[in-house]
Structures are given as structure tokens and as C-alpha cells.
């Protein structure tokens, strides 16, 4: 449901997506849709062991396979410690990875890479690489990682930025505010929850893929499916040992990422293979490789303790995290930090806070960025604990949230204490419609009428649950985005942005932001994005940043172009710019009524008088990260006899400020809710005792399908963020924070058992029912 905004023009309209027609027509827009003539196929040899030293590699037989052009392994590539995490500089993830190491740390780790004329030759060569391993004892859980005498996963001397490598601790945080222990001891009532999330997959429809080739000037072009083209360029240059000026990164249309493509995985391998062979090289992960060798969500155990007064006002929140980063520490510290930084400010009434946690290495697949980025894990525990607290107080869970949530003009010490791998930035909340979200969502689901009723329908018992969440809009002090806006001689515009549309619709939204300022329809703004040769810098599509950070850069560029247009028009009309108004494709004088079309202005500036290019480049850094807010409500039905849980209905009411493109914003919410339902009910990567993932594919790793999709009602509740472009905040991640706790709380409402280990499979639910004697 779109809520009308006060704005007229492009903003607030669900215009046709700028890439919609080409997608509908099946045009070749994706990375691997384009062939580069003469391209070799690159393939990676994965480790069969969870933990092993490579004693020797013999490639003689593999090199003899006809069509094999290059083989890379630790013996013939530069050893440059780096992180695969595509983050801004300075990089907060440890440099604990090298392209090919003398040791493998998980089943699927990179042992060698081959480039060959055909896929068959590449595969044959992989089979013929003789590797002698010395198998080492493996660490397959975070508890084992921390145990005394545990095998050390990162014992290489050249790694940098690991918190305590000897004890497998990649990152640790401990942030106390006030005195939590005393406040909990003195609280009128306390509640706690310890919740666990397993390994899970982003499951973007397009796997990771890249083509590396040399242009006519001999520069290396990487056409790649990435969320972070500028970080790809910086990191590949360093790892491969090339001058960054010799690298161009192009991001074509992306078939989804959800964080899994905020990672530099295939690009340096393809680049090196291209350099070694002088030939174009294309590489793509199979779905199995995406599961095993790309990235996953950080499995976590989060324990929350709450203390509150009789009135329900929180006195203390204690949150403790154990995060499993897998074999490498990509995003380990920052995801860990976000568990606290994106959750604790929501309930800013509590004066005593403690946030502590560890992220540890294991010999399992590597976790990374995944929509929600730690907040999802944090909210699961926090919101289940809040449900328990409401019960202990005999208070409605909505009322409990109302008494504790942050409001306009308020702040939280956490904003300043926890940032992305370092201290954050103090900020005041300037827009918050959470109270409206709670009211509207509760009305829509029929909270008063239906909660606590335990309506039965044969073996099915129905229940209602809710949760709240916030997120951020970009990373303060780190993110920077730039935009270049050029007016053409015909009065249309070219918008060049580093921002990376990965299927979210940001190309369209950024065009709308410019079109609104320029008083033109969206189709007068041609968007070209994410090409490191042609577009200005942008940190990339992550941390819910694009609409807010990139959008602000676009708005500033548009404001500058707007002023230049008025200057040209003023000279042409012989009037002062102050009396001129730009609207509906023309500049008109309020004084004389005389007008000039944008076409006339473009023509004049280009060819006629005082010739110049009307254009501007503007950038925006992120001084604060305004949180979007959401209230989640769901109805579930639980089969008491089998343990099957069905989500019957899901209502999410979200405040993303002014929705630039309401349909796209609703789509973000709907997609995130469904992904969250997958977390809650069915998604889990499973491992054999050897550390091998046994369900690396969609046959046995189940995503909810259309058959499993309940009625999802996404309600955009407007506020106006004064620092946002046209009042906008982010919307892309927040939706995934609600389903886990809301569904767990709804199961409790239905059948009186708490599910704290995701996913809530029939087996876990039935076991919980029987353990409770039900």
C-alpha cells in the first residue's frame, strides 16, 4: 500500500523501472550474457579437507591436458595477505586470506585454479592436479574453536588484524555503558533469551561470475557481478600487483546479491589467469560452489538479558554474542558490531547496557555480509526476550515496545560507542514513525481480537506474534558516494553514478531523485552506473546506503545543475535567476511569464552563446545514519501433532521516510520478509562430520517458494527524514530482522513453547512441544 507523500513529481511515484523493459524482453544484460571472443574458462580446485597442510602440488599431468593454458597455486602466485570483504578503506576485516595458501581451512577452500580452452579441459586438468595433503584436526563449531588446545586455524605469520589468532578469535568487542550487572540484579523483573541461527545462504538467482579481458589499450577490464566495483578495483590491484589505473571494473545488471557479492572472490583469480595467459578468462561459480565457496550468513548464538521496572521501562540490556565466521574473517568484526549497534539503540530508555561478543574461526565455509548484517541475529534474541519480558510484566508486547522505543529528538550512547569496526558517530534520531507503524500494523493484523485466542482448527493452533526493528542508512564516517549529472544539448540528462544497482531498483530511484529536482519525467534522465572508468566513486551497494548516501550525492549534483540551468535561462531571458522557476521541462519567469524549454536551454549552452557544459559532480559523505523503523506482525498455525508451522499472514509496517519508489520499497519489504520466513522455517546448511556441506544446492536446501508464501502486507508509513534526499531513508535490509522473532513469538502465542534455534523445523517444534509436556 503506498501512502501519498506531499511531494509532486517523480518522487513518490512507482514509475517503470529504468531496466524493466530490457529485463522483460530478455535482453543480454547480465555479466555472462556477453561473450568475449577467445575467452578461456577458469575453474577452481576446491579442498576436499576441512583443515590440511598442502605438502606438495604436482601439476605436470594437468598441464599436459590439451587446451590447458595456465594453472595457479600457492607456488606460483604472489603471496599478499588481504581480505575478501569488499569494504571501504581502512578495511575493518583482517588480512587473513591469500589467493592460494599452503594450507586449506575448509572443504571448498581454494587450492588451485586452471584456465583452459574448454570447460572439459579445465575440469580434466583439475582432476589431474596431484595434491598431497597432511590432514590436520578440524574445528567444526565455535565452542570447539574456543576450547583449550584447539587447533589453530590461522597460524600463518603474515596475517594482519586478527584479534587473537592463537585462540581462533578473529574479533572481540566489549562495550559497557553504566552498570548492567547491578541494574539486572535490582530490576523489578528480568527476562532472557538465547537464540541461535545456523549457516544459511543468500541464494541470489544469479551466481557469481566474472569476465576478465584486456581492452585495446591493454588495460584489464573486469566485467563482474559485484556489489562493490570500486572496492574490486582497489583490492584486485593490490592482490594481483597491478597499478589500479590499469584496471577497469564494470558492473552490468546483477541478478541479486543480498551481501554475497560484497566480496572479492573470483575477480583476482580471473585477473591473474588473464595476465598469465594474455587471454580473456571467464569464471562462474556453479550453484554448489556458491553454497560452499562464496559466503553465508554468520551463524550465531546471541544471549540477551533484560531488566525492567514495574512500568516496563527497561533498566538494563545485556547482549552477548558468539559468532562463527568460518575459515576466514570477512566482515567478522563489523557483523559482530552490528549485532549490538543496530539493535540496542531501538530501546534507548535503558541506561545500563553491555554488549560483548567474540567472532571465532572454524573450519567451515566463510561467512560474510548478508542482508541484516548481524542485526537479524541480534533482533531474534532481543525481540524474543522482549516478548518474555512482556509476559513477565503481564503487559501487552506492543505496549512494552511503546514504553521503550527511541523517538524523534532522542539518542542512544550506542550510536557513538559502536561503529563499523571502530567507534561510531553520535546522532539524534530526526525521523521516526515507529509508533504509527505499531498502531497501523496491529490494527491490520487484528492484534487485539486475535492474539492469545489460540484458535484451533483440527490439529492446527493459531497464534499471533510481533517484533520491532531498526537498521541504518549507510555507514557514518566511511561511506562516500558521488554522482555526475550532465545536461545534453537536447535538454535531457545523463546521470553517472558509482552506485551499484544489484536488482534493488537504485538506478530508477536515483533517476527519480534527479528528475524531481530538475522538474522532468524520469525518462529524461539516462542513468549509467558502476563503471570505474566512467562513473564517479561510490563505496557500493551495502549497509542500506544507496538511496540515502548515493541519493544525497545525486540530489546535490541535481541542485547544482538546476542553478546552472537558471543562470543560462536568466541570461537568455534577461531576468534575474531568483524570479525563475524550473518545472515541467521548462524555466519560466514568475515576473514576466516568459519561458524557455530545457531543450532550448541545452541548445543555447551547447552551441549558441557563452558556450559551456551544464554539469556537476557532487559527493556525499555519511555524517549520520538515519535508521528506518519497522513493526512486524504475523499469524502462524502450528500443527501440534507433526510440529509443522505455517505462516498464515505477515504484516509489516515500515518507516523508510519518504518512499521514493513505493512499489520498489514494498518489494524490498516483501522479499526480505520471505527471506526471513526461510530463516525461520526451513533454511539451514548441514555438514557432515568431515566438515563437508551435505546440502549444497536447492534440492536439499529449501527456500520458501510461492507455495509457501503467506499473504504479506507491506505498509509504508511515512515520515520525513530531514537529512535524506527528498526525506528518504533506507528500506533494503530492515525487513529481514522481523520474521525470526515475530514467528517465534507467534508460535509461543499459539502453543506455549519458545523456539530459539532456527529454523523452526517440524522436528524442533514437536520436540519443544513434547519437552513442555504438550
Amino acid at each position: 500500500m503506498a501512502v501519498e507523500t506531499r511531494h509532486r513529481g517523480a518522487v513518490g511515484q512507482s514509475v517503470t523501472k529504468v531496466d524493466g523493459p530490457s529485463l522483460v524482453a530478455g535482453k543480454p544484460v547480465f555479466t555472462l550474457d556477453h561473450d568475449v571472443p577467445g575467452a578461456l574458462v577458469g575453474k577452481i580446485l576446491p579442498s576436499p579437507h576441512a583443515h590440511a597442510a598442502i605438502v606438495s602440488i604436482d601439476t605436470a599431468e594437468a598441464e599436459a591436458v590439451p587446451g590447458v593454458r595456465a594453472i595457479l597455486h600457492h607456488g606460483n602466485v604472489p603471496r599478499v595477505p588481504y581480505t575478501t570483504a569488499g569494504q571501504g578503506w581502512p578495511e575493518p576485516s583482517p588480512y587473513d586470506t591469500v589467493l592460494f595458501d599452503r594450507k586449506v581451512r575448509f572443504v571448498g577452500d581454494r587450492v588451485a585454479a586452471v584456465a583452459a580452452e574448454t570447460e572439459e579441459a579445465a575440469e580434466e586438468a583439475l582432476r589431474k592436479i596431484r595434491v598431497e595433503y597432511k590432514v590436520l584436526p578440524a574445528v567444526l563449531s565455535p565452542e570447539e574453536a574456543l576450547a583449550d588446545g584447539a587447533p589453530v586455524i590461522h597460524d600463518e605469520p603474515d596475517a594482519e588484524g586478527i584479534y587473537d589468532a592463537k585462540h581462533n578469535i578473529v574479533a572481540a568487542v566489549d562495550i559497557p555503558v553504566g552498570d548492567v550487572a547491578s541494574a539486572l540484579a535490582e530490576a523489578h523483573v528480568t527476562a532472557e533469551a538465547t537464540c541461535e541461527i545456523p549457516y544459511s545462504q543468500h541464494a541470489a538467482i544469479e551466481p557469481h561470475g566474472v569476465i576478465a579481458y584486456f581492452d585495446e589499450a591493454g588495460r584489464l577490464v573486469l566485467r563482474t557481478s559485484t556489489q562493490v566495483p570500486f572496492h574490486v578495483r582497489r583490492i584486485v590491484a593490490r592482490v594481483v600487483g597491478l597499478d589500479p589505473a590499469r584496471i577497469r571494473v564494470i558492473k552490468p545488471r546483477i541478478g541479486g546479491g543480498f551481501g554475497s557479492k560484497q566480496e572479492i572472490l573470483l575477480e583476482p583469480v580471473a585477473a591473474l589467469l588473464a595476465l598469465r595467459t594474455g587471454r580473456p578468462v571467464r569464471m562462474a561459480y556453479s550453484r554448489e560452489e556458491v553454497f560452499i565457496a562464496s559466503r553465508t550468513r554468520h551463524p550465531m548464538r546471541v544471549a540477551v538479558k533484560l531488566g525492567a521496572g514495574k512500568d516496563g521501562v527497561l533498566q538494563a540490556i545485556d547482549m552477548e554474542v558468539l559468532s562463527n565466521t568460518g575459515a576466514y574473517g570477512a566482515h567478522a568484526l563489523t557483523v559482530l558490531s552490528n549485532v549490538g549497534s543496530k539493535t540496542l539503540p531501538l530501546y534507548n530508555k535503558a541506561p545500563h547496557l553491555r554488549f560483548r561478543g567474540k567472532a571465532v574461526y572454524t573450519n567451515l565455509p566463510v561467512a560474510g555480509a548478508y542482508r541484516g548484517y548481524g542485526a537479524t541475529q541480534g533482533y531474534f534474541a532481543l525481540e524474543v526476550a522482549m516478548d518474555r519480558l512482556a509476559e513477565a510484566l503481564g503487559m501487552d508486547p506492543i505496549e512494552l515496545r511503546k514504553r521503550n522505543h527511541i523517538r524523534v529528538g532522542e539518542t542512544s550512547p550506542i550510536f557513538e560507542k559502536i561503529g563499523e569496526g571502530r567507534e561510531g558517530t553520535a546522532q539524534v534520531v530526526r525521523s521516526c514513525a515507529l509508533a504509527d507503524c505499531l498502531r497501523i500494523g496491529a490494527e491490520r493484523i487484528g492484534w487485539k481480537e486475535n492474539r492469545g485466542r489460540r484458535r484451533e482448527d483440527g490439529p492446527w493452533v493459531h497464534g499471533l506474534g510481533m517484533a520491532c526493528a531498526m537498521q541504518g542508512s549507510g555507514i557514518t564516517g566511511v561511506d562516500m558516494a558521488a554522482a555526475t549529472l550532465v545536461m545534453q544539448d537536447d535538454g535531457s540528462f545523463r546521470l553517472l553514478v558509482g552506485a551499484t544497482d544489484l536488482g534493488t531498483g537504485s538506478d530508477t530511484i536515483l533517476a527519480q531523485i534527479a528528475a524531481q529536482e530538475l522538474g522532468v519525467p524520469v525518462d529524461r534522465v539516462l542513468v549509467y552506473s558502476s563503471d570505474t572508468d566512467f562513473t564517479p566513486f561510490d563505496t557500493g551497494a551495502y549497509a542500506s546506503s544507496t538511496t540515502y548516501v548515493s541519493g544525497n550525492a545525486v540530489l546535490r549534483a541535481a541542485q547544482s545543475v538546476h542553478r546552472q540551468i537558471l543562470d543560462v535561462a536568466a541570461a537568455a531571458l534577461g531576468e534575474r535567476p531568483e524570479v525563475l522557476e524550473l518545472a515541467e521541462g521548462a524555466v519560466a519567469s514568475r515576473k514576466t511569464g516568459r519561458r524557455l524549454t530545457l531543450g532550448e536551454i541545452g541548445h543555447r549552452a551547447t552551441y549558441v552563446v557563452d558556450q559551456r557544459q551544464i554539469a556537476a559532480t557532487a559527493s556525499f559523505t555519511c555524517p549520520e545514519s538515519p535508521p528506518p523503523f519497522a513493526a512486524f506482525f504475523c499469524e502462524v498455525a502450528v500443527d501440534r501433532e507433526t510440529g509443522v508451522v505455517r505462516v498464515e499472514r505477515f504484516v509489516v509496517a515500515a518507516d523508510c521516510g519518504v518512499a521514493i519508489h513505493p512499489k520498489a520499497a514494498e518489494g524490498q519489504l516483501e522479499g526480505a520478509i520471505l527471506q526471513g520466513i526461510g530463516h525461520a522455517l526451513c533454511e539451514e546448511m548441514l555438514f557432515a562430520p568431515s566438515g563437508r556441506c551435505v546440502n549444497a544446492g536447492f534440492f536439499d536446501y529449501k527456500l520458501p517458494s510461492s507455495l509457501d508464501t503467506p499473504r504479506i502486507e507491506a505498509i509504508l508509513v511515512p515520515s520525513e527524514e530531514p537529512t535524506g534526499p527528498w526525506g528518504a531513508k533506507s528500506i533494503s535490509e530492515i525487513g529481514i530482522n522481523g520474521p525470526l522473532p515475530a514467528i517465534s513469538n507467534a508460535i509461543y502465542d499459539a502453543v506455549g513453547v519458545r523456539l530459539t534455534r532456527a529454523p523452526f523445523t517440524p522436528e524442533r517444534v514437536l520436540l519443544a512441544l513434547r519437552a513442555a509436556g504438550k
Partner: protein
Amino acid sequence: MSGVHARGVRRFHFARDVEEALSLLAAYEGRGALLAGGVDLLRSLRVDIEGLIDITRIGLSYTKEARGGLAIGGTTTLTSILESRAAREYGGGILADLLHRVAVPPLRNMATLGGALVSAHPWADIPTALVALGAEVRWQGEKEGRVPVEELYQGPFRGLFRQAVAIEVLLPPWDGAFAYEKVGRTGYDIALLNACCGVGVEGGRIAWARVAVGARPDRGERLPWAEEALIGQRPSQTLWQEVQDLVAKRIEVGDDRRASGAWRREVAGVLVERALARASGRAGM
């Protein structure tokens, strides 16, 4: 994965009749494979296949009434069974009940009944139902034969269908009705557990009963002792619950990565009870 293994394939044949399919198959000396829907072939781990022999044009795609029951050709897709008028009434509507819960429409458009029978995955839906329904399969290889599916599954049947075509599945007539129950992780999942049960009544008492449970995690098998407990009794909710308890007590189940034996034990009883209750409802008891 599938793409890798398919690459050994050098020839693709459209057989014109069963005999040609068989002679082509024989000529490949074990390195050929019959192709109908291709669903399981794509998932197959066989790396040795050089020739694919398409058998979808040899006249084995049909669903028709036969001696009060049904005869379904080996290459009939699940979708076309679902669409057939003959299948609609059979066994109280069991085929619609069953097939709507197998995979998703695009796969049902490809997957064939013969393929499901021959692949006989332990987690599959169709074998459980075929066993419960007392289906027979008519096959043709060097020899021709006809064998109850239940009996087939008790022997080393996989070798047979490396050299023979599953011509036709025969579903016998039942004076009564069946129902199918399943638990999966999603609406399109394989079964964590499934059950197919049928009952018929004469003079107020159960004249025959069929109870099969599959994905235990082993393939669907009948539970004769559960059937015996039903026969001669008056149908009632109490009876179904007695059988539920009996199944939970006696069924042989095991653990796999998808579910534990303990869960399967309890839920097997539930699924049998539900299938019996629905089947008896359909049979108009």
C-alpha cells in the same frame, strides 16, 4: 553438477518403438540410458552415459481405464495424469491428492510415472503410493514381465531397468478410497515422511485396508500388521487412533539428515491416522 555428467553424452536417439529402444540400449552395452522426463537422469551420478535414448515417442503416454482400474503408460507425465479424466475418480481421487504434492508444476510437466517408479527414491512420494495401491508394472526387456511394484522393490530391481522399459503401470480397482499425507520442509520439497492409506467397507466393517509409510527414511513399505488391525473392525475415529498408536509403536524408522527416527516414529502414526480418516471419509463411511 548435472551439466558435467551430461557431457559424456555423444548421441541422442528418438526411439520409434520399444524394440528399437531396447536394441539401442543393448548396443551401448551399459553406457546408454533411457530418457523420458529426464528429471532423475539430470540428478544422476552416472558419468558413463554416452547415448541417450528418448522413449517419449513410442506410444507410452496415456492414462486409461482398464478392468475397473487404471493403466498408465510408462512415459506419462505427472501433469497429464493429473489432467486425465480417468485418473480423477480412481481410488477416491488418490492420484490428484498424491501428485499435487509432488514437486512443482514445471517438474511435473517433465517427470513421468515410469521414471518415478524406476528411480524409486526412498524419499519419493510416488513409490509409497504405488505400493499402497497394489500397483503392478509391465516391463519389456529381453523378456517381458509383469510384477507387483511391492515385490519389485523387494529385489534388486535397478539392474532390470538398465535393460528394460517400464511399459505400463497397472493400478487395480479398489472398492473404497485412498488418501495421501506428507510432511516436507516446503510446499515443493521431497518427503520427510509420507503415508498412503486406503480402506473399503462391507456391511459396516472394514473389508480391506492398505497402509504404507515412506521416507522412513527408507522407501515406502506396507505395514501388514497395521492393515490386519483394521480389517474386520468398524471404521471410527477411535480405530484410527488405535492404529496411530500401533504404528508409532511398531514402525521401523531411522535418522537421516532431514529428520530423526524419533520424530518419524511419532509423526508416522499421525500421518497414517489422518490418511485413514480422510480415506474413509472419501469412501463415504
